[in-house]
């Protein structure tokens, strides 16, 4: 018996030793980058992943209005109290340090977007498994996205390290490029993208609204020229867009800021949000937090971005855009519908006003932060105003595009003779609380309109954690 048992055990041992050769090779349940880009669908999925960071909480949803509006003279921070979102308050008072979380999100999310675009470009380039058409399309869109993320970096920090490929660890610590080099890269990407991107009308026809278009690339290029004061180039590209016939002004200004106005006739580049009943906060879903952030506290929101009296007073008498921009105590919205709602100004509100452009009526709200309202990144009205601004600087007919914008809201032609002044004025009223004001002030040398601003605050501090991790990064003066 003893010997039999011994033999059985030994044979089990032998069988076992034979069968455990591949025991330790456990294939990952997720697709690795080595095999991922194996067909057209995979390329499109990875491309959608590269669009995704644009819509994150830390991107358009928070820090664009946090800087564009709150740091400017258009709005106060608002919220629960002064200590609610203290990092935004620190930016507003120009006392932020390099540990500011808003700025950190700015830096990191943009580079994650760039990396995703680069990963897609490298995954499909010269990849025989993916059809030529899809390859061309995907690369053009990824280049547009790369330029978009880059633009958002340069706008905030000035020159930053240019990344045009997936980096290996030894390349993580490259120093900053100059601002001019960055602009050149942005222009290059946008020009290449525009050459291969379809028009908006084709996107609409194919039910692909939200994907990059020729017009979006040209408009972002125009914006890049405007930031660089390349007025002739800006005029040329703006004119191209205007003459393309792809875009019109929405005859109803208020309609632009409704759910129905998303991706409307005036939309050149909308950041897309949708309510798919997913629930949750932040990146759990595809909705936006802007609605709940800016809704008044006594109406179920968090009461951020409180328009200042200064902004209120800036509107010309009879300018209907004010009521679509600012909410006062007792305003009634969506009157006559089931959604009719009276608005109150909460006791904590620092200015007595709430923001109007990014709120939805109750019936259209999503759960928690899943509000489906798009963020209008570039509207056709802004393209017209860029053309006007370029011509005001460069000579040319600035009145026609500017007066088109005024006429849409029933205002008479401008009586201002100084084109630059007229554009500055019109931009503020037309684009108020759409996160443009701060950048307009600093790029046109009017930062002094903001309390606490000095010229060394033109660019924000590079996050300290980034400088710690990459000592080659030179800090901005601030």
């Amino acid at each position, binding site marked *: *018996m*003893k010997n039999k048992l*011994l033999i059985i*055990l030994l044979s089990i*041992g032998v069988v076992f030793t034979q069968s*455990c050769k591949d*025991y*330790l090779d*456990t294939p*990952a*349940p*997720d*697709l*690795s*980058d080595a095999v*991922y880009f194996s067909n057209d669908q995979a390329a499109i*999925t*990875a491309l*959608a*992943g*590269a*669009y*995704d960071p*644009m819509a994150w909480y830390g991107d358009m949803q928070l820090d664009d209005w946090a800087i564009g509006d709150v740091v400017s003279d258009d709005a106060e921070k608002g919220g*629960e*109290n002064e*200590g609610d979102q*203290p990092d935004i308050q620190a930016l507003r008072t120009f006392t932020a340090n390099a*540990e500011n*979380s808003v700025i950190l999100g700015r*830096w*990191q999310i943009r*580079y*994650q977007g760039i*990396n*995703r675009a680069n*990963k897609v470009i490298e995954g499909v380039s010269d990849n025989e498994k993916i059809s030529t058409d899809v390859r061309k399309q995907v690369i053009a869109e990824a280049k547009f996205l790369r330029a978009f993320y880059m633009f958002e970096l340069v706008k905030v920090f000035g020159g930053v390290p240019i*990344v045009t490929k*997936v*980096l290996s*660890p030894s390349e*993580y610590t*490259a120093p900053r490029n100059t601002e001019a080099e960055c602009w050149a890269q942005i222009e290059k990407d946008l020009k290449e993208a525009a050459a291969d991107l379809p028009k908006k009308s084709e996107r609409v026809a194919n*039910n*692909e*609204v*939200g994907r990059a278009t020729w017009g979006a690339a040209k408009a972002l290029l125009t914006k890049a020229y405007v930031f660089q004061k390349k007025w002739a180039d800006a005029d040329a590209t703006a004119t191209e867009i205007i003459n393309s016939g792809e875009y019109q002004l929405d005859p109803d200004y208020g309609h632009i800021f409704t759910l129905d106005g998303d991706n409307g006739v005036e939309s050149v580049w909308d950041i*897309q949000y*949708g309510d*798919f*009943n997913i*629930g949750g906060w932040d990146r759990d879903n*595809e909705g936006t937090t802007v609605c709940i952030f800016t809704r008044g506290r006594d*109406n179920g*929101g968090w009461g951020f971005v409180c328009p200042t009296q200064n902004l209120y007073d800036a509107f010309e008498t009879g300018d209907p855009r004010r009521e679509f921009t600012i909410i006062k105590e007792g305003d009634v919205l969506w009157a006559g519908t089931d959604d009719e709602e009276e608005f109150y100004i909460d*006791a904590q509100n620092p200015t007595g006003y709430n923001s109007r452009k990014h709120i939805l009526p109750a019936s259209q709200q999503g*759960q928690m932060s899943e509000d489906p309202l798009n963020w209008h990144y570039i509207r056709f009205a802004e393209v017209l105003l860029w053309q006007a601004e370029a011509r005001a600087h460069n000579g040319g007919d600035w009145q026609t595009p500017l007066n088109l914008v005024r006429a849409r809201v029933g205002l008479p032609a401008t009586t201002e003779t100084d084109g630059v002044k007229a554009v500055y004025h019109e931009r503020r009223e037309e684009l108020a609380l759409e996160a443009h004001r701060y950048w307009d002030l600093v790029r046109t040398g009017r930062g002094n309109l903001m309390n606490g601003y000095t010229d060394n605050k033109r660019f924000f501090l590079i996050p300290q954690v*980034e400088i*710690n*991790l990459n000592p080659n990064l030179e800090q901005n003066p601030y």
Partner: protein
Amino acid sequence: MQKISLILFFLFCTYSIYAQKEIKGIVTDANTGESLPGVSVLVKGTTVGTITDLNGSYALTATENDVLVFSFVGYKKQEVKVGNQETLDVSLVVEETGLDEIVVVGYGTQKKSDLTGSVAAVDMEELNSRQVSTIDQALQGQVAGVDVTVNSGTPGGGIMVRVRGIGTLNDASPLYVVDGMMVDDIDFVNPNDIESMQVLKDASATAIYGSRGSNGVVIITTKQGTEKDAKISFNSYYGIQNFWRAAPVANSEQWAILNNEARNAAGLAPYPGLANPSSLNYTDWFKEISNENAAIQSYDIGVTGGSEKSNYFVSAAYLNQEGIVQKTDFERFSFRLNTTHKPRKWLTIGQNLTLVKTKQNSVLEEDEWNNILIAAMNMDPVSPVYNNDGTFAPGIYNDINNPVAQIYYTNDTYTNYRTLGNVYLDFEILEGLHFKTNYSLEYAFGVNDGFNPEFYVSPTFQNPISNITKDNNSNFINQWSNTLTYVKSFGDHNLTAMIGQEIYSQHYEWDGISANGIPTNDPNVRFISNANGATQAVTYGSIYDVRQVSVLARANYDYKGKYLVTVNFRADASSKFSEKNRWGFFPSFSAGWRITEEDFLSNIDWLSNLKLRAGWGQIGNQGSVPAYQNVTTATTGQNYTWGGQLIPGAAFLSSGNDEIKWETSTTTNIGLDFGFLNNKLEGSAEYFIKKTSDMLLQVPVPGQSGLAEAPWQNTGEMQNTGFEFSLNYRNMDNAFRYSIGAIFTTIKNEVLSLGNGNEFIDGSPFRGTGYLTRTIVGQPIAQFYGYKTDGLFQNQAEIDAQTAQTGVAPGDVRYVDADNDGELDLVYLGSPLPDFTYSFNANLSYKGFDLNIVLQGVHGNKIFNGASWFNRSSSAYWNLNVDMLNRWAGEGSQTDARYPRMNAMDVNNSQISDRFIEDGSYLRIKTLQLGYTLPENLVKNMKLRVYLNAQNLFTFTKYTGLDPEIGNGMYGTLDLGVDRAFYPQARLYSIGVNLTF
């Protein structure tokens, strides 16, 4: 019971047929001469026996060749041959110490006296009297160097166990081995099923577990059968639990006064509703969410028995615990069957099997935003719980979610089914040569059911569409270990050698569904199929596989039991690493010298034991690295919207690193075991240095890399040096017997490196205001980081004298500008790690009475009192701590920075600073138990003990939060010492019974 007695009686009669004569006698204590009642007297090799009566006398019948076995708890067993005597008086000697105790050391056992590594055994006798609902609680305060902290007092809540401090920035939990099987937790073990529990602390002891032993190993062996008559034991208790301390928040009058003051100070009109503070509605929110006199009950029945060839242990247990917060509870059913069989002299086979079902209801805890306790402490005390129509009322003065409503609408149940078992075979091939094979498996299935009904309380607290979620997870673990052990003595040389091999695999699978729109809130229809949105449900799921192959070896050698040497070796290969880094080799060496065995000490009576031990070893850690980190993989769910449709997106969030390998910790250990006065006083002292290198870290990479998740890298070093001391004095000689023990541990932690260019790592984010802890090279991990306060500005002159703070007024907090550069400086504000931990325990017994006390303490640590950030806020937006009535109210009225002036628009005083950091030292009476064992003549043939028990009876602390005993927070190892109003431990009073027959 009567039936069993009858059966026993019948059995005695049957055997008595063969009896030849009657034997009588008295059993006494050898030392005192007092008679011993209740001593078991058994004819060896039979079931014939009796028990001595109150006078210590016994009588039974036996033959001349029989041997009588006298046994009694606490005394040495004695065997006496009957021979021609008819009167056999026996005196029993007290069992002095556990020196000959057998200790389980992993893949084998060793005599305690032969140990060379650092192995501590938990005193099971004491543990059994502690009445704990889960076994990890029972470890608390029992072993030097082992810190057990309750993460949450919620029934079934988590426990943080640290052996010799925090050895790594990663998962620092020890490995648990139950009946030879490696498991991640021991929640499933019924405390009453445990036979022995050992903690392996140093590398020379844990190295046999190789890559999984670096944070210590807790080995548990469950009860086995005996070669005796069936013995049935029944244990039960019933108790009530309450908060040991109420939340120190203001009532409505106090809060209204302070709120009015705050608004006035900010130039805001006070709320009209608070104009008359003394006539306001008052809601004691803390009371509203409490479940007063929460019941706990436990029933456990176990049977052991068997014969020479087969024996068994069977048990069934049920625990039901309500929580001290409404709608929290825990229920556990557990069953166990352990059997051993000896079909041949050279063959032993056996199995252990346990089935466990647990069910836990919980409410939101841990986070500082909406957690129920924070909400109850922050909600304004004026708002009512209900509106007049019976619906839940929203807060009037702040937008905290009504905590009573929040509990009411929470439906979160976790049910877990677990089967663990093993079969083994021990084959003595030749004398002294044993082959043992042990196959273990675990199959666990967990399901989390959540239901969020449709409700409306206020615009910010509503759920317009009901939602149902179901998360399933299953875990399948196989482990097969084979060892060959050879024991041989050559004269004075004793050798035990073992070689072995092991394979381990874990397959983990999860999936889940979340769907909207259950038409009603009826609990009977909470199923996915009833959801209107079932076809648009959100689903997810995936798996991971982890496998390991190991080779192990150990040799123990001693010369005359005087000089002892142990050598361990283990090699592990893990599927988590790429082929080139797969194998890790973990050696250890240790030696011991039993000085008291030397001739030159043989004359010293008072010294009964002295042993010096020293060891060195290297062990690995891989537990914290998830599988598949060596490749770059796509993550789905990175979606975007095109054409109004949800478009699935994917992205590569990290970058695989195929260079990663084990992190290694090297421990040097020196220990001294001593025993004096016939081992009445014994103890041990140990010193260790444990250095962890190649630490596996997700080292942050520069943002320009574009990686959302940092890749894992082997980098960074950390060192723990510590001193452990334990001392025990026992005296069992007299009727009054007692044992008193104390343990003391101090550990110094230092981060030596965090990898290239990585100077610090922030941990513990707090309410969007930043991080509370910072881990920096050269300091212990997770130091508090923020502003240092310097009292309060008393007048304008003091404000004018500085430039660092602007916009402040008298009564505001003054912060230190350490370098006088006109800007405030963030500085280190203390450590969440204690200077030392200690515990005392005492067991006293006199006649039938016994008293058991366990005290446990922590000294010198700091706690960030998260609740006080709200409740000592100048804004009075949230409810306030009552001590804010001492706020600054004019020059000289208050200088303590904790109590600044009220100001509704305050920004200055809520900065992260030492205002919110408190001394976390405490001393807690964990257990106080008084028992009484009924005399044997009252209850024949059985041992019946009843007891009264109190847990967490008193806590001595200066800490002002709900509970100073806090474990890890929700943000991992670096989230230490931050009290986000954790669910505190309950004070428990209970009554219980232990019955054995």
